[in-house]
């Protein structure tokens, strides 16, 4: 999952980034004014945008309005010092999905981000299940059947992304977009490497496979074999 923080207070943005990155699920980008924020939100695929309102160059609400006008559905959480009822109502009416006043609690912010992602993926339960694979997004633990599986952060991030989009074909490009922040060198073979590592851990021989490769299209996390997607 990839998060964009649009916040002019550089130190605060860094702190939020640190907080979010303490969870294995997230890659974080930052923008420090409205113009940059809008540009980044339009050119990259984000799963959540955290938006300050009082931004230099372009006001936060204007950024939000433009994004929604451009048809962007990315969940937006407004994080601002303006906490009057009218401000909250206006922010939500402009198309934001959540509103949090400063000074905020980091735990609350992280919980809200996770909730926004669950909601936008149509999977409100905190525990994702695919067959006998169980991914607990609350404590970031993975188990298959009765066996707990330890995954490094990036492998977990990849698996969680696939699990949020079960039964959908996810291309390598999409994975690269959503799993890495802006500063990362993106090579598609990294994905292949992680997928094979995940397979080793999650699909031991003798059990039904749940991570499937569709050659030339991408990957799919599913209980069933994806017949209709298979290429000849």
């Amino acid at each position, binding site marked *: 999952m990839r998060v964009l923080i649009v916040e002019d207070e550089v*130190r605060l943005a860094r702190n939020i980034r640190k907080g979010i990155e303490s969870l294995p699920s997230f890659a974080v980008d930052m923008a420090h004014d409205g113009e940059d924020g809008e540009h980044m939100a339009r050119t990259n695929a984000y799963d959540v945008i955290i938006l300050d309102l009082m931004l230099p160059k372009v006001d936060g609400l204007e950024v939000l309005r433009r994004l929604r006008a451009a048809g962007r559905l990315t969940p937006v959480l407004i994080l601002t010092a303006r906490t009057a009822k009218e401000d909250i109502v206006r922010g939500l009416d402009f198309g934001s999905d959540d509103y949090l006043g*400063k*000074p905020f609690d980091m735990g609350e912010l992280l919980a809200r981000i996770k909730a926004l992602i669950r909601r936008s993926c149509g999977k409100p339960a905190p525990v994702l299940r695919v067959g006998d694979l169980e991914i607990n997004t609350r404590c970031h633990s993975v188990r298959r059947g009765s066996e707990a599986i330890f995954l490094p952060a990036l492998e977990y991030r990849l698996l969680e992304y696939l699990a949020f989009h079960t039964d959908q074909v996810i291309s390598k490009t999409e994975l690269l977009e959503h799993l890495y922040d802006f500063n990362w060198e993106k090579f598609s073979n990294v994905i292949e490497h992680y997928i094979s590592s995940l397979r080793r851990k999650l699909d031991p021989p003798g059990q039904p496979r749940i991570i499937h490769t569709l050659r030339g299209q991408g990957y799919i996390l599913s209980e069933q074999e994806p017949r209709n997607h298979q290429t000849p």
Partner: protein
Amino acid sequence: MKLRRLPLSASIALLVFLAELALLGFFAAGVYLLCEKQFLASFDESLRTNAMAIPAFVESQEGGVKLEMESLPDWGARFRRKKDPDLFAIVDTAGTLLVKFPASGDLPDWAERKEKRAVFGDFPRGTRNYRGVFEPRVLGDEEENGKGKRRVYVFYAADREEMDERLASVASALLWGAGLLLLVSGALAWGIAWRGLRPLHRLAGEAAAIRETTLDRRLSVRDIPVDLEPLAVSVNNLLERLEKAFERERQFSADAAHELRTPLSTLKSGIQAALVCRRDAAGDRTVLGELLEDVLRLEKLCESLLVIAAPNEKDPGRAMPLSDYRQCVAAVLEDFRPLAQLTDSSLTLSPGKDEPAKPGAGEDLAGSRQEKDSADRGSTPDPLVRADECSVLQIAGNLIENAILHGGTGVEVRVGIVEEERSVTLVVEDNGPGMPAEDQSRVFDRFFRRDQARARATGGAGLGLAICRALAERHGGSVRYVPRPEKGCRFEWVAEIAARRKAHSQGLKVEPGP
């Protein structure tokens, strides 16, 4: 309860009551006296008439002294009364009693007689009060029988209590009437005063209903008596001022809270981020450093807020120390040189218009910071302003910092000191982009920032100029923005000169001026 603490209606009623008491008292006393005089006069008149009639009556009796009660004429019926009959007697000039009725009893001791006129007198008889008269008369008719004249005094007296009773009834009628009138008019006065004071009560009710949350309400000025209007209007003006002051304070608190929120959330998120991150020693140190930075920023903001929120002195500059204006400005200039270099700006101290040019004065002054007291400052006596050095440094510093930061890279900032007889003005000019007209009126407002981004980057909260103004006014001076016809901004700080001193009067180093 003191008289002046009585309800207004009651005291009005009381005053009306007292005034009427005095007036009616005079009136009633006058009427009573008039009645008494009138009654007495008619009583006396009848006494005299009777006294006149007595000799003729007596003479008509044979022998002159024998009196047959039964033969008395009709008017004499009063003599025949058993109780309290009228009395009469005739006495000659020698005092010999000629005739007396009734025969028993003496004449009253009061017996003053005058030859020319009647003498009246009161005396008790038994339980009754009598009034009598001695009337001088001449008896006998010369022409008829030539018996010769006889001078006598006719005494006639009658019970006066009937008259007294009538007088008493007049008095009591007067008393009752006046008392009733007093009571009624007092009550009326009370009622009228109470009714007249109703608009006042209404105003008081309206004023009492205004709470701190409803300061926008006003007393209704329409439909009140004209003489209450000034009161209502001045209360309304007071409310207006109160409302504005409340609004200002509320706005300030809201702004302050809002400004505190940003550094607070940075601080909080920093701590929480540090808590959720894996720890390592080097990371801890950087985190602590950053947190300290946040705390310092909060501290600075709090200090600024305190400076602004401090009330202005009633008596500006009374207990303030004196500060050397030039020294302070020079110190500030030196302070900002690094910043000016960093932004490629030039910072120069130009001599004031009224001053002869002193080449290199800026550098000399700037260099004197470490050894202020021994610096050579030329022959002009140094102006001293009544303000603590801290304030002078802060005002000058804020103005110069603003000029450097808002002027942009490469700005030329000129600082000048213009001295006049009584005041000294610090002029800070720059050739930066200047200020749009709509910002000029708001530039001294608290939390006013012309550019969010730049202010955030420099950590400003939009309080610099507000602090300047607050401090300058606290010392009896003023700060203003002067529009420049050419590019850039010009700020002027005018301060009163409290005293002057020559460089050598500091007692440290005596040096003749160049």
